[in-house]
């Protein structure tokens, strides 16, 4: 493990807190006693949203920017992002790494996690829609970044500029929650 990775793991905890309790069942509190939000609670501007980013799209020493591809909707494959790309509300999770729950454990090392603020997304005129997922709490989608619109060159011109801005923001040190290769 590199020094950067070690710092990253520690940083994970500082950013979003450690879970309390057993890790099973409903966990209601984050670090510092902060009460987790319910998915039914309104999404507020001061919230953070988490997104998984695969290792090949993550920033590296050589290329310290996350690929904008990490924020593009899947337009084909098993699960196209027809409703928009997914994020998870950090306020609804006990631990940011809970967002890996939909991934097979042997693949967790292939994923990093980044965060973006709701206010930043809103500044780009993006909206958020809650779309509960039984596997991970706090699932939301950005309907503007959907598979259908991304297939159109006309709409893609605007959307592409947006995903580049998302990638730039997510690449900042303070927004890297977990680096690929980190142990959970």
């Amino acid at each position: 493990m590199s020094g950067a990775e070690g710092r990253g793991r520690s940083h994970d905890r500082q950013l979003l807190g450690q879970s309390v309790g057993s890790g099973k069942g409903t966990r209601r509190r984050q670090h510092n006693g902060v009460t987790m939000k319910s998915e039914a609670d309104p999404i507020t501007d001061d919230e953070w949203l988490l997104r998984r980013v695969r290792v090949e799209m993550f920033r590296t020493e050589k290329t310290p920017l996350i690929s904008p591809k990490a924020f593009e909707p899947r337009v084909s494959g098993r699960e196209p992002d027809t409703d928009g790309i997914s994020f998870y509300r950090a306020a609804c999770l006990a631990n940011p790494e809970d967002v890996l729950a939909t991934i097979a454990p042997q693949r967790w090392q292939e994923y990093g996690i980044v965060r973006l603020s709701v206010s930043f997304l809103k500044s780009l005129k993006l909206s958020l829609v809650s779309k509960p997922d039984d596997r991970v709490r706090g699932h939301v989608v950005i309907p503007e970044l959907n598979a259908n619109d991304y297939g159109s060159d006309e709409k893609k011109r605007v959307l592409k500029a947006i995903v580049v801005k998302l990638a730039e923001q997510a690449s900042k040190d303070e927004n890297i929650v977990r680096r690929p290769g980190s142990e959970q």
Partner: protein
Amino acid sequence: MSTVLRSARGASAFTQDDSSRSRGRAPTAPLAAGASVWSRAADDPRQAWSQVIDELLRMRLLKDDWDGEGALAPHPSLVDGAISLARDLQANGTPAADRVLASPNGTICFEWFTPLAYWEIEVISPVEAKLCRVPKGADEAMIVNFSGSP
């Protein structure tokens, strides 16, 4: 009708659709003129491109669901098209891509990050690609479609 984007010394001859041409000047010309942000100025360009092509060759081994989330693997013929394009770009003096990756949609993307813009070429079929340029802070990207001979 299409304008030949560049002389093709490699196997493919990617061309640019007239609908979005930049008057005979290759839209990637600024890329060739300047180094990328995280310049590998000290690197041997041949070695840098060689690493890109090695990465492309590895993509030939991908199978559908390579990411565990249902991603499509790029078809081997599409990988071959991407390799041909990479050789063309190298032959024309374009700096090696900062990153090359397989997308979940079965396409292959070359990326460059320059001080002025983000550049991307997405190979969408063995003979088709899209060039995208997003200037810093811009609200809209330029997208150019290319076609080529196999």
